[in-house]
């Protein structure tokens, strides 16, 4: 019987190695797997590459992981100057790669969908194109972009069953379905556990085949 539930954050994060690329969904705090992120802080892996929409506000779990020095490189769509991430960057203690938000999502989608590379006009006529491959397609300059795959994805779900089928509420969804497809090990936290078959087959938002472990959290 397939049963992807684990009983603790320790079990959920077991085996995440130093140097891992970690995909962390969330837009602000909405849709962020905070319990799993706390678990990662506990677990101890370091030299991480963290992929997350932003560098986070001070006091957030993301900022704590960064200030603990556990992240070697942050890949995100923006960093605030007045934030731990901004200060670490300016102090030379954090490498940051800023990627336009749509390209960030699409690069992970490409990783999940087996697209080895794609072109996009986003950023092609900006400083982001410096030193990079640009090709004119249909009269428009386009940047060549490569997939962004994770070793681990941390997912925040609303409901989950033992196959790992997931649903999300409102804007909790954001990066979660895309990141769930893009990692070797996908770990989800869920507010609700439901029986197999309780989710309507048409309404599953992340099929369980993309999910390896599920942790039930409160809240």
């Amino acid at each position, binding site marked *: 019987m397939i049963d992807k539930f684990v009983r603790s954050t320790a079990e959920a994060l077991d085996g995440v190695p130093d140097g891992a690329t970690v995909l962390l969904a969330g*837009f*602000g*705090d*909405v*849709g962020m797997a905070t319990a799993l992120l706390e678990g990662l802080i506990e677990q101890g892996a370091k030299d991480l590459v963290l992929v997350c929409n*932003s560098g986070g506000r001070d006091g957030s779990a993301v900022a704590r992981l960064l200030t603990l020095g556990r992240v070697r490189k942050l890949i995100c*769509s*923006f*960093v*605030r*100057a007045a934030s731990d991430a*901004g200060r670490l*960057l*300016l102090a030379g203690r954090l490498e*940051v790669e*800023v*990627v*336009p*938000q*749509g*390209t960030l*999502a*699409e690069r*992970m*989608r490409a990783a999940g969908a087996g697209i080895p590379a794609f072109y*996009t*006009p*986003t*950023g092609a*006529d*900006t*400083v*982001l194109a410096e030193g990079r491959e640009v090709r004119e397609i249909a009269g428009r300059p386009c940047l060549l972009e490569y997939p962004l795959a994770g070793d681990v994805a941390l997912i925040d779900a609303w409901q989950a069953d033992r196959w790992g089928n997931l649903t*999300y*509420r*409102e*804007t*909790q*969804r*954001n*990066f*979660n*379905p*895309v990141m769930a497809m893009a990692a070797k090990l996908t770990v989800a936290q869920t507010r609700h556990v439901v029986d197999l078959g309780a989710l309507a087959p048409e309404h599953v*938002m992340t099929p369980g085949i993309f999910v390896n472990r599920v942790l039930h959290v409160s809240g």
Partner: protein
Amino acid sequence: MADGFTPLDRDGMAARAAHDIPEGWVVNLGIGIPTEVGNFIPADREVIIHSENGVIGAGPAPAPDRINPFLVNAGTQPITLRTGGSYVHHADSFAIARGGHLDLTVLGAFEVSENGDLANWARAAHEPVKQIGGAMDLAIGAKRLWVIMEHTTKEGAPRLRRTCTYPLTAKGAVKRVYTNLAVLDVTPQGFVVRDIIPGLSFESLAARTDAPLARA
């Protein structure tokens, strides 16, 4: 001639832009003043507001006791969903933005050039702390890009320029600019003034603008 005029405030600029958005358009409103445009679209005019975090049909802010922590806009502010609205994930949300499905995107900016270049993410080309977010994706993808910004900086430097001095978000993308002083179209011939606030002369507006202006 001395001008006697009152520049529009944030609400005034947002209301002025909202006035020009017809029913049925799908519209992305950027962070800041653009977000406030939504407050000035009459409730009975069905405009579908897209938010980059996966909202199609964003509604106004909820009453304080009705906040849903799972429902926020691109500025992570609590919102509501209009009847008929729906949710998509981030890649689908940007497929909407990049795929040309937005009738209109409204963004803030530092500067706009007379050929429609947009600069809105940094004040220096190699500034290490980059605030790009979804702006580049939105700028390249919309059918129309409007900008709302003050006509000049606090120090009085013009933001409508022959050439942007700040790093670009996208080239040739802006179609119209709403400022606290005027509404201007970006045309192949440069900025064309559509209207000016009462009491401000064309010449005074031109004096506050780096690029040349044409009358509509």
